[in-house]
């Protein structure tokens, strides 16, 4: 296979590299995923629909999406503040704190799960102050939101940081010297620049949360219809040897994953073109 357009390349190894990559990707990802599709295709549409829209399944979508949406929103608000103070302000221990932001990426989810459950349980460091107020976090739906907030924390911060670093101080100075108040500068100048990254970070955190399993199951309480997430429902169907039911739900989750992947790709393209337009504008100036 030669590259399909342009002159013949000077560099070696195209066939070997692309061939290896395609074989690896096909054997490991595409073939197994089509196995799932094959298994699901043995169901009729009516059967599939009956499983995918069963009472317990619908409740699990509600829990999964509701908690993911809430957690991603919390992360968007606090992630913006964290990214802002990490880029703009100086305070002792800043580099350490900056490195620590990636902890949720590095800490195995099972560890996060048992730790958060212990912290927010009635006798835990945090739970003991919340329980007397009537706030039950661990082993209840709010626990899912806490776990997903932890898991999604780095996404918004890490997406926003480079964007805030790239904002030239001259732009804000120009706004200020034209008489804009700090609030006006934020709303009119900074917000439009930050918006694409905020939306991208939100979406990344959200799509990671939907599939999350390890950190949630320890803190959720896992009551059917109330605090059961969809990945857990798949597992409990498997444990009851209901492979068909598990497959149908897995197909639903896989379709959602594909949609999220394309949304994220589209958002990154949007952010890049906006960024590019700004850069081009800068070059013209």
């Amino acid at each position, binding site marked *: 296979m030669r590259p399909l357009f342009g002159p013949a390349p000077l560099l070696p190894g195209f066939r070997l590299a692309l061939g290896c990559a395609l074989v690896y990707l096909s054997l490991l990802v595409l073939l197994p995923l089509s196995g799932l599709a094959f298994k699901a295709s043995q169901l009729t549409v009516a059967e599939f629909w009956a499983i995918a829209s069963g009472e317990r399944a619908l409740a699990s979508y509600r829990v999964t999406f509701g908690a993911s949406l809430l957690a991603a929103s919390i992360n968007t608000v606090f992630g913006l503040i964290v990214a802002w103070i990490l880029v703009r302000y100086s305070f002792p221990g800043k580099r350490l704190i900056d490195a620590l932001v990636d*902890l949720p990426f*590095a800490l195995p989810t*099972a560890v996060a799960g048992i730790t958060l459950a212990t912290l927010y349980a009635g006798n835990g460091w945090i739970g003991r102050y919340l329980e007397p107020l009537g706030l039950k976090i661990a082993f209840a739906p709010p626990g899912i939101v806490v776990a997903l907030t932890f898991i999604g924390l780095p996404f918004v911060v890490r997406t926003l940081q480079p964007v805030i670093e790239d904002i030239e101080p001259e732009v804000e*100075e120009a706004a200020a010297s034209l008489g804009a108040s700090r609030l006006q500068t934020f709303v009119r100048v900074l917000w439009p620049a930050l918006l694409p990254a905020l939306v991208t970070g939100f979406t990344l955190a959200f*799509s990671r949360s939907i599939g999350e399993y390890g950190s949630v199951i320890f803190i959720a309480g896992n009551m059917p219809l109330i605090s059961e997430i969809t990945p857990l429902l798949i*597992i409990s169907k498997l444990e009851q040897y209901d492979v068909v039911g598990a497959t149908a739900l897995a197909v639903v989750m896989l379709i959602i994953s594909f949609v999220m992947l394309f949304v994220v790709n589209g958002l990154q393209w949007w952010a890049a073109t906006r960024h590019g337009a700004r850069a081009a504008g800068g070059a013209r100036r």
Partner: protein
Amino acid sequence: MSDAALRRANAEPRWLRHLLLAVGLGFLFIFLLLPLLAVFTEAFSAGWRAYLRALQDDEARSAVGLTLLVAVLVLPLNVCFGVAAAWAITKFDFRGKSLLITLIDLPFAVSPVVVGLVFLLIFGAQGLFGPWLAANGIKIVFALPAIVLVTMFITLPFVARELIPLMEAQGKEEEEAAVSLGAPGWQMFRRVTLPNIRWGLLYGVILANARAMGEFGAVSVVSGHIRGETNTLPLHVEILYNEYNAVGAFASASVLALLALVTLAAKAIVEWRMRRETRMLTANLAAEQN
């Protein structure tokens, strides 16, 4: 307006600055620092002796061994794939390139539980190849091969994703120069490409390693939780925790938390090296231009 007045207008008022700092740092304290402290506090809650006893337990040691074995098996394959994919994508033009990049991202988007299920459907007793495998006495599911396969799936994007932007930015002039001077392909790769990408490669390996050793959901579906045989360290944590053995669970969890801290430190060092090399490169370029 004077410079000082501009700077003042350009910064948040003092009260707002303090408020933002308090809210941001408070959030990080509650969501990052407290959990980290809690892991170690719980692990040592019954003292050093109980901690060490929990880690010297046979099942804990076999879990550590299996976790290391899986990482050792998965990472070299992941590196080969990452380098091959990045080489094809960044040094050549071909149709379907952006589709290939999207496909490389796919494992990040799929729920770990679904990944586990997919391999169960293929290699499990009721799976596509299940009867054939059983007839030939080959064990994949509930054994090491399936744990390795799901870990390969989960970690697939890490090295490739680090290398693609890096090699894209570096362009192909250096390699082309090496080839036109008569260097054979392997020599060009070892002398030119590898030194250029080594930090990015290491960065990807660090991230992939953390994920490979810590993966829970996908491994838990295909491992079968056979004690002393197919339990990785994260699964061992789960089993002890569900048996109300908090000290044991958090002792093993503290090993994984330590691994996470080492990962963060290694990541910070590599980031620092990469920044320094970029700075040196730009400085050299500027010096040449003058």
